[in-house]
C-alpha cells in the first residue's frame, strides 16, 4: 500500500488542473503581451483565470497578482507594506513566532533595513488571539502578518477578529493563507483581509505559481522588476498553463470544500483518536480550530527522521518537524513556539490528508505507526532512561 499523507508539503495534481493546463501547453501557447490572435488567446485565458481566482476569494480581478508561488507572494506582501509604512515613518511590523520561513526570513531582511519586528508568542494550542495582536500594535505599526492556518500543526487563527483590531488601529493586515486556500472558507471582503498569499500546489494545482491578493489602493512594490506584466507589479512572461491550472484547481477545491472537509475531518479525528493511544505522545495544535487534514503528534523518546523513513518503508509518506529532516540541529520552530522542549520536538510526526485519502488508509496507518514507534523506542537510549525512571517523562 502506498499512502500519501504529506499534503501540507505538496499535493498530487488533480485531473481537472492537468486537463485545464494541457491546452495552454500544447495549443494556446502565446505570450499574452503579443497582439496577434495567438497572444490574445493567452491574454483571454489569463483574464478568465484572474476572474476565477478573484471570485474564489471574494476579491476583484484587479486585486489579484499572479506570482511564482506562496513564498514570492509572502515576500512581496511584506516588502510592499513595509515600503508603504516607511513613507509614513511607520517601521514596526507584528507577526508570530510560528510563521512560515517565507515570512520570518523576509521579516529578518526588513529588520536589517531598519524595521522593528515583534514576533508574538503562540499559545500551547498554536493560536494567537486578537487581544494579543491589539496589545502589540503601536502608533508606528505598519503591518500585521499572521498566517491563516499553520502548516505544521494545522491550528487556525482567528483571522476576522485579528483583521478587525488591525483596522480599528489603521494597520494593514496580511495573512499567509497558503495552507488555508481551497481548504477553509475565505472571503477577503467579509474577513477584511488587506493582503493574502496562496500557493497552487497546496490544493492539487501546479507547482511554481501562486497569488498575492492586495486590496485596491494598496500599492505593491516589485520583487521582480522588468516588463509591465501584472499591471507593472510583477515582471516576467506569465506562466499561463500554471495560472490556468491554479484557477481550475482552486475553483474545484472551493466547490467541494464542505464535503471534502467533512471527509477529511472524520479521517483526521479517527487518526487522532487512534494515535492518542500511544503512551507518552501528545497532539500538537488545537483540537477544534484545526485544518481538516492535519494530524501532528510528538512521541517521546524517538526521533522524527528515523520514524519517517521507517514509515516510508511501509508505504506511508509523512513528514516531521524534526531537525534532521532539514539538516539543522534545531527542531521545528513551530513546535518550539508552542512550548515543546527540544527533546520532544525532535520526535514529531505530521500526517496531512487530502480528500483522496480513505478510511482503509487510516486503518493501515493506525496499525503500522504504533509498531514503528515501539520499535524505535525499543532501541532508544532516551526511552530506556525514561522507562527506567532515570529521566522524567515530559508527555
Amino acid at each position, binding site marked *: 500500500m502506498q499512502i500519501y499523507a504529506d499534503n501540507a508539503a505538496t499535493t498530487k495534481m488533480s485531473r481537472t488542473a492537468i486537463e485545464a493546463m494541457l491546452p495552454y501547453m500544447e495549443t494556446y501557447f502565446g505570450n499574452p503581451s503579443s497582439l496577434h490572435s495567438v497572444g490574445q488567446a493567452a491574454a483571454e485565458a489569463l483574464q478568465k483565470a484572474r476572474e476565477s481566482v478573484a471570485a474564489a476569494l471574494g476579491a476583484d480581478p484587479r486585486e489579484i497578482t499572479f506570482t511564482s508561488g506562496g513564498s514570492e507572494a509572502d515576500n512581496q506582501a511584506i516588502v510592499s507594506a513595509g515600503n508603504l509604512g516607511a513613507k509614513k515613518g511607520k517601521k514596526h511590523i507584528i507577526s508570530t513566532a510560528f510563521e512560515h520561513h517565507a515570512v520570518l526570513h523576509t521579516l529578518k531582511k526588513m529588520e536589517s533595513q531598519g524595521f522593528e519586528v515583534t514576533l508574538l508568542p503562540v499559545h500551547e494550542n498554536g493560536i494567537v488571539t486578537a487581544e494579543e495582536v491589539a496589545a502589540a500594535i503601536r502608533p508606528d505599526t505598519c503591518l500585521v502578518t499572521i498566517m491563516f492556518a499553520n502548516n505544521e500543526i494545522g491550528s487556525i487563527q482567528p483571522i476576522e477578529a485579528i483583521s478587525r483590531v488591525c483596522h480599528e488601529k489603521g494597520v494593514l493586515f496580511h495573512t499567509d493563507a497558503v495552507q488555508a486556500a481551497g481548504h477553509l472558507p475565505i472571503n477577503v471582503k467579509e474577513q477584511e483581509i488587506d493582503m493574502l498569499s496562496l500557493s497552487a500546489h497546496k490544493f492539487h494545482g501546479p507547482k511554481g505559481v501562486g497569488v498575492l491578493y492586495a486590496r485596491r489602493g494598496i500599492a505593491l512594490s516589485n520583487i521582480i522588476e522588468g516588463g509591465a506584466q501584472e499591471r507593472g507589479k510583477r515582471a516576467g512572461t506569465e506562466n499561463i498553463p500554471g495560472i490556468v491550472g491554479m484557477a481550475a484547481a482552486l475553483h474545484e477545491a472551493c466547490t467541494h470544500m464542505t464535503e471534502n472537509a467533512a471527509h477529511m475531518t472524520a479521517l483526521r479525528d479517527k487518526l487522532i483518536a487512534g494515535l492518542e493511544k500511544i503512551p507518552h505522545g501528545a497532539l500538537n495544535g488545537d483540537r477544534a480550530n484545526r485544518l481538516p487534514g492535519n494530524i501532528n503528534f510528538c512521541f517521546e*523518546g*524517538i*526521533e*522524527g*527522521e*528515523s520514524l519517517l*523513513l*521507517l514509515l516510508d*518503508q511501509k508505504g506511508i509518506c509523512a513528514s516531521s518537524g*524534526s*531537525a*534532521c529532516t532539514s*539538516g*539543522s*540541529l*534545531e*527542531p521545528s520552530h513551530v513546535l518550539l513556539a508552542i512550548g515543546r522542549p*527540544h*527533546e520532544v520536538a*525532535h520526535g514529531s510526526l505530521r500526517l496531512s490528508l487530502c480528500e483522496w485519502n480513505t478510511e482503509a488508509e487510516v486503518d493501515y496507518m493506525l496499525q503500522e505507526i504504533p509498531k514503528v514507534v515501539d520499535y524505535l523506542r*525499543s*532501541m*532508544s*537510549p*532516551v*526511552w*530506556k532512561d525514561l522507562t527506567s525512571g532515570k529521566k522524567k517523562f515530559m508527555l
Partner: protein
Amino acid sequence: MALYSEKVMDHFTHPRNVGEIENADGVGQVGNAKCGDIMKIYLKIDNDVITDVKFNTFGCGSAIASSSMATEMIKGKPVSQALELTNKAVVEALDGLPAYKLHCSVLAEEAVKSALKDYYDKNNIAYDHSLFPNCEDCGYCEIKKEK
C-alpha cells in the same frame, strides 16, 4: 541520488547489534536529545578483544546506520584496533553520507571511544587521554547554532 546510499538504508532498516549487554565491560554514551542524536554502546571484552558489542540509538536514519556500521567494524577486533576507528572509515563503509549528516559518523566514532575509555577506566588501564575527545569537542552543535 536518493537521500541515503543503499548501505545506509540497509543498516538503518536492519541494524546490526541492537540491544544492551548486561554487565558490559565498557559502556559509552554520547550526544544529547536536544541535538537530536544519542548513541550508547556496550562492549564485552575478553583478552583485549571485543567479543560482543551492542548499541542503542536515538536519532535519525544515518545515526542508526552509523551506530550499526561502527559496531560491525569493531566486533571481534582487538581494542587497539577499535581505537583506530575513524568517522571517515564509517562513512566510507556506508558508501557515503550527505554532508549535513557527517556528524552522525563523528558521533559513532565518539561512542566507540567513549565505551573503550570506560573499559580502560574500569580496569585501571593507563591510556593517552588525548585519544578521547569529549562530545563537546566535536563542536558540531555549536557550529550549527551559530549559523
